[in-house]
């Protein structure tokens, strides 16, 4: 294998998260709906109907194009891709062809070890999805719910060099799509689909060999597996004196293997021509400016800035920028907090993220939705309460969930529930005395030399004080009382 290099390009289909379909008013997403319940004469291609372009589709696609540094066409056109299939109700797919929305961008893919691979983005174009067909009991069933779902097709150059890189690209692409609210990008729901073009060549060569195309892979793991298997197959083929033929392969998820598709299903002259039912997309300066003015900072830029501006370790910055709402949450909390940002980061990575993951999430919702009442300012306030020793660390952590549930400011909860830290000789000493009195056996053992029991006694005091006792002071008092 060492003498071979894999050359991989990915063609992704991205379902845009608009309210309605690309050319009619049906809802764009019909995941889980019974077949043929989210359809209308337009998406079913009845005689005489006409498509009307959803501007929201263009807007989402333009922002994605800008994020991958592509050149956005001032004028782009729709075309008809003609072919017959039962789930293609018009007998042609409305797509873009010779004049797509955008061309010529790039995507910087961070690789393990700190390097970056710059992938070329050849083009982005808009198109409508087709429906689904299913064979069962010798019958062919058609579901048109997906007909007219808005898609962006984004094609990379042959720039990826391994199955792992391909998987990494999809992870980073998914991050970007969710970040920009372009797509929910859930591969299992076919909101992000991927075809892979795979070839091999001697390491260091610069020519391209015949490639195979892998279709129908619907998870990142499957993309990695399918590409890895195909690279192995091509190497075996070539090393045994054979040749790689330009096949189209289909990934069989259940069997975990690739199958050659019948030639009939793949060849064809689509007889493209300009779609006469739609006007060209003209992105005038005002529209473009308005769209790009609201572009958010992108994940990798934000990651770098977090390192620079908040002195976070790369690791923290990476985790905090995995998702946009989380990064915004961090930044808002760090700004509201007067101490070091790293402390906010620690709390977020240790506690806040655990809480986020414990809360079941609705598809398409930002992660911070799980934090409900806990605003970034509240988080900063909890940290301040802990820093000033107003509450113990344990109380501080317990406050997180209380604030999530109620939205009440942490300081108000502390006052109302009397959660302020107990310290000073009086109150704390009484609790310590009680703890010793209630556990004479352990006290005797301690005095007999088993001093490790001190921490156990601290625990008892914490329990009795419901976490409010200052742990250092408690240990100090207990030590004194147990000895005496």
């Amino acid at each position, binding site marked *: 294998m060492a003498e071979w290099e894999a050359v991989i390009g990915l063609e992704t289909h991205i379902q845009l998260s608009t309210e309605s379909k690309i050319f009619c008013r049906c809802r764009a997403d019909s995941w889980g709906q019974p077949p043929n319940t989210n359809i209308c004469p337009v998406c079913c291609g009845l*005689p*005489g*109907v006409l498509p009307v372009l959803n501007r929201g589709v263009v807007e989402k696609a333009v922002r994605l194009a800008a994020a991958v540094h592509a050149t956005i066409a001032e004028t782009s056109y729709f075309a008809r891709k003609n072919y017959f299939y039962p789930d293609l*109700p018009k*007998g042609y797919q409305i797509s873009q062809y010779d004049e797509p929305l955008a061309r010529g961008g790039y995507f910087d893919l961070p690789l393990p070890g700190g390097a970056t691979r710059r992938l070329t983005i050849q083009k982005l174009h808009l198109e409508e999805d087709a429906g689904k067909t299913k064979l069962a009991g010798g019958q062919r069933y058609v579901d048109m719910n997906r007909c007219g779902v808005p898609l962006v097709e984004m094609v990379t150059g042959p720039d990826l060099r391994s199955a792992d890189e391909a998987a990494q690209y999809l992870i980073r692409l998914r991050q970007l799509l969710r970040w920009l609210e372009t797509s929910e990008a859930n591969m299992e729901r076919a909101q992000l689909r991927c075809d892979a073009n795979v070839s091999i060549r001697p390491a260091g060569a610069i020519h391209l060999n015949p490639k195979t195309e892998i279709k129908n892979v619907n998870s990142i793991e499957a993309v990695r597996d399918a590409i890895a298997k195909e690279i192995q197959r091509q190497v075996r083929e070539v090393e045994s004196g054979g040749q790689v033929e330009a096949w189209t392969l289909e990934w069989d998820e259940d069997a975990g293997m690739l199958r050659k598709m019948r030639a009939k299903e793949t060849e064809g002259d689509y007889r493209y021509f300009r779609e*006469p039912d739609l006007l060209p997309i003209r992105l005038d300066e005002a529209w473009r400016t308005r769209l790009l003015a609201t572009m958010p900072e992108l994940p990798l830029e934000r990651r770098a800035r977090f390192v620079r501006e908040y002195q976070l370790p790369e690791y923290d910055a990476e985790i905090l920028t995995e998702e946009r709402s989380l990064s915004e949450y961090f930044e808002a909390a760090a700004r509201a907090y007067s101490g070091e940002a790293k402390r906010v980061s620690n709390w977020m990575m240790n506690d806040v993220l655990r809480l986020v993951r414990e809360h079941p999430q609705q598809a398409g919702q930002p992660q911070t939705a799980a934090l409900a009442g806990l605003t970034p300012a509240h988080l900063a306030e909890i940290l301040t309460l802990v820093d000033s020793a107003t509450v113990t660390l344990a109380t501080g952590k317990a406050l997180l969930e209380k604030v999530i549930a109620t939205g009440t400011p942490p300081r108000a909860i502390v006052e109302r529930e009397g959660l302020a830290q107990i310290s000073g000789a009086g109150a704390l000493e009484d609790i310590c005395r009680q703890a010793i009195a209630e556990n004479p056996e352990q006290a005797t053992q301690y005095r007999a030399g088993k001093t490790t029991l001190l921490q156990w006694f601290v625990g008892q005091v914490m329990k009795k004080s419901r976490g409010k006792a200052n742990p250092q002071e408690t240990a100090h008092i207990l030590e004194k009382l147990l000895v005496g």
Partner: protein
Amino acid sequence: MQLCDLTAHEIVERLRRGETSAEAVLDSVLARIAQVEGRAPRTAPYPPSAEEQAEDRRHVHAYISLQAERARERARSIDQARARDEALGPLAGVPLAVKDIFCVEGTPSTAASRMLEHFVAPYSATSVTRLEAAGAVVLGKVNLDEFTYGSSNESSAFQPPVGNPWDPSRVPGGSSGGSAAAVAAGEAVLSIGTDTAGSIRQPAAFCGVVGLKPTYGRVSRYGLIAFASSIDCVGPLTRDVTDSALMLGAMAGADPQDGTAASVPVPDYQAELEAGVRGMRIGLSPDYFRIQYPDAKTGELREQEIDPQVKAAVLDAAQRLAGAGAEIVENVPMPNTRYGIPAYFVVARVEAASNLHRYDGVKYGHRTARPMADLRAMYRASRGEAFGVQPKLRILMGMYVSAAQYEKHYYQRALRVRTLIRGDFEAAFDPAGLHRLDALLAATTPTTAFELGALYGDSVLMQYADLLTVPADHAGVPALSIPAGLDRGGMPIGIQFMARDFDEARLFRLGRAYEMSTAAEAWRSARPKVLGGG
């Protein structure tokens, strides 16, 4: 003169004055239909016996389906509204025949094809909805060439074919032949048609009625079963220019269901209808006094003068308009006119083949009754059984010229020719140019209506019947065909005006001026043969 022979504006006027009712108008039209229509067209094999055929050639056969009950309900509700003193729409109570290429909710919408023989549309075309909102009463769906593919109505799957009311052994023209014949024979007062190469104007000329092809995008195409989407125009067929203006006013304008319907404001076409033509510059072009076509065997370009009687009618119209104060500009070159048909042949067929893809037997329309194990075999059998010869020819040619290896030679070149033809009009209408025309005046057709069967089967020659109408379709400019007398055989002659984009108001002024200048002519009171004339 029956109620059904009145124009729309006369009917609305009488209705407003309470002199008649919508129901009485409807009854009059239905009586006329019973009188002249003949047996209803069917998809059964044709021709029948010689005797039956002879009988068929004495009748009009305009309607594929009549919705008399639906019409009566509408007429009654209009009469009730009038009884309550409610305001009446501009077309209140006027019987309307809809070319059966438009979807009308709840009615069979067949496109004159076996493919859609049993298709009942679940929605109405925007243009039809707007006419109904203006008060028009839809009577039924009228015949056409299958999917509008033809210029004689003979290719309809529904036979007997429509006969020309002026002589039912002749064609009514096409593809809006049922529309033109119905309006000419008093079987409807208005009809809505479509024009892709002349499909409104040519039958209007052959049947002696007024036909307007508006600017591309002036009227929504939503609900119109598509032929060549980049060219198809929806327009009125009427008895006079005033009705044409009324009807366009009711239909035109932007439509949220058609992105290609222009948002250009719709003027009040009635306001300046009789403002006259003084100072207008009207062009005549030698390229519209001859037809040029390739010889079927050698491919050499042949040239032929148009029928001298038709030419004389154009020159007479020019003289009358000059008399009314217009300036006639002769010898305006329109050099790319000759390429109109070949370019149309390519562009329209590529789009038509694609537009016919959806008829695959899967969702609606005809599906073969034979059991099929293979999907492709099912497609082939369904389409093979249900499409007539014209759709099949168009699919074959359309697929051929759009195939990857030929597309550059044919489709791309045809699109460039379209641009050249558009350039002819832009040069002629250029306010800073040599000719500075306000309108171009020409014959609508090279000849008057030909005999049934005379050209059918020669799809190349048939197409050249559209040579003078197709340039306006390519260019997208509006064109109005109006009756301009009868030939020696008593068949109507049509002339047309073409103008700048969205300048329909000027066409109406020209047409109205011509009508007024010929009001006293004997041919104005001639009646079609089926009504006892000729």
